[in-house]
C-alpha cells in the first residue's frame, strides 16, 4: 500500500522561496495583492517560516518550509460537515473543492495553520490566465484549499506507469516544490517503500515531526539538528 510522504531537510534550506513560487505556478494559487496580504490573506500552500534563535549579535536564522502535513489522524477531517476533506487510501489528505461550503472549521482545527481560504475570486488579468495549469482547477471564492502533494502529478505518473504495466518508480513523481528546490532539501516519495529516498531519510537520527505533541501523525518529516 502506498503512503505518500515528504522529507524536508531544514539544515539544507536556504530560505530562497523557489518552492513557494513553484507551488503557486503549478497549482493555480491566486496572488491576493498587497492590500489583502496585509490583511493576512496571503495564500502560500508552501510557506517559509522564518525564526530567529538567539539574541543579536549571536543570532541564527532558521528556515522552516511548512506545507500540509497530510496527517494520518488529521484533525481537519472529522469536523467538516459536508465531507469536503477526507483521507485517501494512498495517504493523501484530499480536498474536494466543489463540495466545500466554506464553514472554515477545518482551518481552525489544523494545528499547523496550513489551510488557505479563497476570500475573493482570483484575478488573472490578460494574458496571465494563460499561465494557469490545465491539470488543476481554479477555485472560486468561498472555498478552502491547501497543498495536495501535487496530486495531479501523482495521478499523471500513475497513469503512465499503469500504461506501461509497472509500478511507479521512486523519484518519478516530483512535486513542484521538490522539483524547484535549489538546495535539494525537499524529497517526495512513498514512505511504505523501504528503498525509497524519503523512507531512508525518515530513518535518520535527525528526523522529527512538527508539533509531535498534537499526535496528528504527519506524513512530512523534518530533518534538523545538524549544522
Amino acid at each position, binding site marked *: 500500500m502506498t503512503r505518500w510522504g515528504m522529507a524536508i531537510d531544514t539544515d539544507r534550506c536556504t530560505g530562497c522561496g523557489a518552492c513557494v513560487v513553484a507551488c503557486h505556478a503549478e497549482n493555480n494559487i491566486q496572488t491576493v495583492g498587497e492590500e489583502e496580504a496585509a490583511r493576512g490573506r496571503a495564500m502560500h500552500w508552501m510557506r517559509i517560516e522564518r525564526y530567529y534563535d538567539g539574541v543579536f549579535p549571536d543570532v541564527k536564522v532558521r528556515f522552516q518550509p511548512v506545507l500540509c502535513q497530510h496527517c494520518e489522524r488529521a484533525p481537519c477531517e472529522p469536523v467538516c460537515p459536508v465531507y469536503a476533506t*477526507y483521507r*485517501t487510501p494512498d495517504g493523501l*489528505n484530499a480536498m474536494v473543492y466543489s463540495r466545500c461550503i466554506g464553514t472554515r472549521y477545518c482551518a481552525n482545527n489544523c494545528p499547523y495553520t496550513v489551510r488557505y481560504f479563497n476570500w475573493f475570486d482570483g484575478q488573472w488579468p490578460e494574458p496571465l490566465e494563460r499561465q494557469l495549469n490545465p491539470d488543476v482547477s481554479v477555485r472560486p471564492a468561498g472555498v478552502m484549499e491547501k497543498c495536495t502533494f501535487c496530486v495531479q502529478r501523482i495521478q499523471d505518473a500513475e497513469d503512465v506507469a499503469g500504461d506501461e504495466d509497472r509500478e511507479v518508480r521512486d523519484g518519478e513523481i516530483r512535486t513542484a516544490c521538490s522539483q524547484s528546490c535549489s538546495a535539494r532539501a525537499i524529497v517526495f516519495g512513498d514512505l511504505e517503500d523501504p528503498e525509497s529516498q524519503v523512507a531512508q531519510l525518515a530513518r535518520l537520527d535527525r528526523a522529527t515531526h512538527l508539533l509531535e505533541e498534537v499526535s496528528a501523525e504527519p506524513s512530512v518529516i523534518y530533518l534538523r539538528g545538524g549544522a
Partner: protein
Amino acid sequence: MSTLHAAFATPDDARRALRILGADGVPASAIEVRSSVPLEHDLHAIGDKVTSKVHWMAVLGAFLGGFALFSLVKFTSEAYPLPTGGMPIVSLPPAGVITFEGVAIGAILCTVGTVLYECGLPGRKSLGPLDQHLAEDHILVSVECEEGAPEAWAANALETERV
C-alpha cells in the same frame, strides 16, 4: 332543542349550578363548562371524565424520535459509505448526540400533537352569545335542553341567554 347559556361570577356559583344539574339528572354530554382560567379540577359536569394521555404520548414520541434519528444516521451513512481514512462509517458518540436530539424532538412533536388532538383544536364549534364573559374571567355553563326546562340551576347567574 335549544341551548341555555349562563355566566357565573365565581367558581362556587358555577359549582352549585353543576350540582343542581347533576341532581336533576342532566347527562354530562349535554353540559359544557367553559372558563378563561384552568379552575379546580372538580369543576366539570358529574360523570364527565377529564383525562389526558399526554405523558404517555411524550414517552412514545421520545422513543420514535430517537429511533428515527438514530436510523437516519446509521442507515444513511452506511448507504453512502464515503472514504473516511480509518474512521468508522458510523461513529457512535456523534450518533448518540443526534439521537438525543431526536428523542427531544419526537417527544415535543408528540406532546403538541396529543394536546391539539385531545383539545379538538383547531375547533370549528361555533361560539356562544355570552362569550365576552370569558374575557372578564367569568365561567360559562351551557346546557342543551328542551324548551321550558327548569332553570333553577341558573339562579346565581350573571346573565343567561337561550339560543
